[in-house]
C-alpha cells in the first residue's frame, strides 16, 4: 500500500480523535446553561436508542435473526441480568437459532 496508506491513516486518526477530544478539554469546568446541560444529560439514552435501531435488525440478511436477538436481549435485560450475561445469553440463543 505504501506511504499513501500511512498518510491516509494519519488523516483518519486526526479526523477521529479531534471530535472526541475537543469537548472534553474545551468545555472543561465551564458552567453550561441549565437547558444545555439538561440536553447533554439526555444524550446517553437517546444515543442508545439510535444505535440499537434499526441496526440490530440488519446484522444478518435474515431479518428474523435480528428480531429474535433484540427480543431476547430485551427479555434478559428486563429480568435484571448483568450486561455481560445479556450479551452471552443472546449470543447463545442466536447460535442455537442459526444451527437450525
Amino acid at each position, binding site marked *: *500500500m505504501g506511504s*499513501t*496508506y*500511512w*498518510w*491516509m*491513516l494519519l*488523516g*483518519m*486518526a486526526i*479526523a*477521529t*480523535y479531534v*471530535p*472526541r*477530544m*475537543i*469537548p*472534553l478539554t474545551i*468545555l*472543561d469546568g465551564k458552567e453550561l446553561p441549565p*437547558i444545555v446541560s*439538561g*440536553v*447533554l*444529560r*439526555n*444524550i*446517553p*439514552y*437517546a*444515543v*442508545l*436508542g*439510535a*444505535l*440499537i*435501531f*434499526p*441496526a440490530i435488525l440488519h446484522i*444478518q440478511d435474515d431479518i428474523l435473526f435480528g428480531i429474535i*436477538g*433484540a427480543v431476547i*436481549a430485551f427479555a*434478559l*435485560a*428486563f429480568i435484571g*441480568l*448483568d*450486561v*455481560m450475561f*445479556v*450479551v*452471552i*445469553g*443472546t*449470543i*447463545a440463543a442466536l447460535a442455537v*437459532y442459526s*444451527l437450525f
Partner: protein
Amino acid sequence: MNTTFSHGLKAGSSIAIGYFPVALTFGLLAKTTGLSIMEATAMSLFVYAGAAQYMALSLLASGVAPWLIVTNTFIVNIRHFLMTAALNEKVEPAPKWKKAMYAFGITDETFSVLATQKNRQVTTAFTFGVALIAYSSWVIFTAVGHVIGANLPQFLQQAMSVALYAMFIGLLVPSMKGNRKVVLLAAIAAAIHCVLYYTHLLSTGWSILVATLASAIFVEILYVKSNKNVDRFTEQKEEN
C-alpha cells in the same frame, strides 16, 4: 462500586467481548483487502473507530481517493463530538492532559458504559480502566483476525454479530425501568433514526447525530415545559 481502575476494567470487559468478533472480522477483511498485518493493526491502533475502519476498507477496495476516505471518517465520527460533550457532564474534574488521553478511548461503546453508570460522577481511574480494556481487545483481535482469519465456525460468527447491540440493550434497559423520560428518549431517537435510515436521507454517522440531538432536545423541552406548569400550579395553590 465504580471508582477504581480495576472496576473500570471489569465494567469494560463486556465491551471487550463485544469487540472480539467485530475486530476479528475486521482483521480478516483487511487481509482480503490486501493490507499487511502491520497496516491493518496500525489502523486499529491509531484510528480506533469500528464503523469508519470498515468503511475505509470498502473504499480502499473500490479505489477511492485517500482524502475522501479521511473525509468520510470525519463524517462517520462527528457524532463522538456530541458524546464527549455529554460525557464531560459526567466525569470528575481532571487535568486537561488526562482528559485528552482518555478522549482517544471514547467510542459508542465506552461512552455508553460510562454514561449509564449509576453514580453521579465517574472517576478518571474508572474511565481509564473501561477505555483500556476495550482498546486492547480491539487492537489485539484485529491482529489475531488477520492471522487466523475465519477459523471461527460460521454459526458462531453469525451469532456473535449481535454482541454489541445486546450490550447496548443491557445498558439501556435498567435505566428505562420506572423512568418514562429514558423510555421516551430512546424510543424517539430510534424512531427518527429508522426514518432517516430507510429513506436514505442521511449517511449513518449524520443520521445517528441528528436522531440523538433531536430526541434529546425535544424531550428536554417537553419536560421543562411540564415542570414549569407544575411549578406555576403549586405556586398558585400556595398563594390561595
